[in-house]
């Protein structure tokens, strides 16, 4: 089971000092996206039936959502001497 990503953490440090430290809660965004997807689901089902094989691309929506959720644990750290940029998706 993939748990949704909940926080985006960005930290920038210069000369060993924290210059920028941001925690962005992204869980509310997913709640909004899921609500929109539920509303659009009947339309998507009709589109898949009408378009046939080409309608497969509509599945890209939920899979794209799964891709963002799968980013949980992604970490990028760049250090140059005492300067540091850290991005964590958790």
């Amino acid at each position, binding site marked *: 089971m993939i748990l949704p990503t909940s926080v985006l953490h960005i930290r920038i440090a210069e000369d060993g000092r924290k210059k920028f430290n941001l925690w962005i809660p992204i869980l509310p965004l997913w709640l909004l996206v899921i609500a929109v997807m539920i509303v659009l689901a009947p339309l998507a089902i009709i589109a898949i039936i009408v378009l046939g094989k080409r309608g*497969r*691309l509509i*599945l890209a929506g939920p899979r794209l959502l799964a*891709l963002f959720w799968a980013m949980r*644990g*992604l970490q990028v*750290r*760049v*250090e140059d001497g005492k300067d540091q940029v850290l991005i964590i998706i958790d």
Partner: protein
Amino acid sequence: MLFGKKEQKTTGERQQILEMLASGKITVEEAEKLLSAIGEGSAGIGASKAVEPLKGIVQGKAKFLRVVVCEDDGEKVDIRIPMQLIRAGVKLGSLIPKGLQSKIDDSLHEKGMQFSLSDMKPETIEELIDGLSEFSIDVNDGGDKVRIFCE
């Protein structure tokens, strides 16, 4: 006394090797070699049999792909990519229409990459990820280092 000094020493060494294997300090193959060297084979239990229960622990599924680049001037890049992201990427990629997939394959071949996107299927990705659990690349060029491994 049930065991002689020699047997006690061998048991201690055997335990030490298995502990090193469990903590990931040595590989299954290395443990097998070491166990063979201390005469585990002559004791009736083969070295392979001795390490068998630990194989599952040591060769557990990798959760992250790590890319670490260290430059001579102190610059360092450390990226940790979750395996789930690779799985999700392949699933999303499988939705790309076949005509477009072949165009992407052609472009990759033109760039010298012998890789076919159409071969990447969600059904086969687990096999690939299992294979990656012992994958490791170390490149040293003077002071610059690149390390790609799974953890």
